[in-house]
């Protein structure tokens, strides 16, 4: 699995997440997660298509 460590942002819902290895920490306002059915952050980490996300740092 490629290294995707870092902070990522979904361009659709602006939710950000920090990825480290196979762990992911998602930051949302409110309790709903994922906010939309096709949010990449709602997938198993090795199925996330990082090309659809914006790298924040």
């Amino acid at each position: 699995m490629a290294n995707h460590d870092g902070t990522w942002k979904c361009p659709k819902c602006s939710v950000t997440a920090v990825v480290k290895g196979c762990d992911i920490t998602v930051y949302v306002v409110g309790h709903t997660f994922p906010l939309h059915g096709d949010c990449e952050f709602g997938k198993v980490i090795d199925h996330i298509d990082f090309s659809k996300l914006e790298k924040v740092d």
Partner: protein
Amino acid sequence: MTMPRLEGPPPLPESLARSIDTLNETLLKLVEISGLTFALDPLRYIARKLRSGEAFRDIGQGYFPIGPAPATITIQMTNPEGYVWLGLREGLRFSQQAVIEYTRLIDGTPLPWVYVPRAVDLDIDWSETMPFGVIIKETYGAIYTNHDPFAQWIINGWYGAYIRKEVWEHDSRLMDIAAESYLHEVEARYGKP
């Protein structure tokens, strides 16, 4: 012609008058206590706040898969600015083979709840803590770690309400004042414990 002066009943004996005064005071207190019990009933309290616009409902559900062990998903939820969260009910369902280590944090403090269930679902009755118990002031965290060698899934559903922070603080103070007044009265009557 002058009307004869009507004489009222003879005055009550002083001890009887005092007893009636005490009885009246006690009845007023009972009305006050039952009024507070009515007003602060958790579900009635929330329903009133929702109708008044001081709170808005938060009903939702989520589904998310979690990768093979030792993958961890941490979800850090932040209240909309200026609101606290009052939960009513929440349910979590895991896939049949899931062995999920599960930790909750309220405002950064982990609850003494760590579950490593296999095919065991979890219901949380938040209303037990309502409205002046466990309030999520700012953040709510959930950490799920999968201990199963295969990917698993989690679904959750909840209903609760976001209430304006200053409204909740004001109502909490009223509740404190009411509770303290009765506590002190008990102490005055029976002495300090």
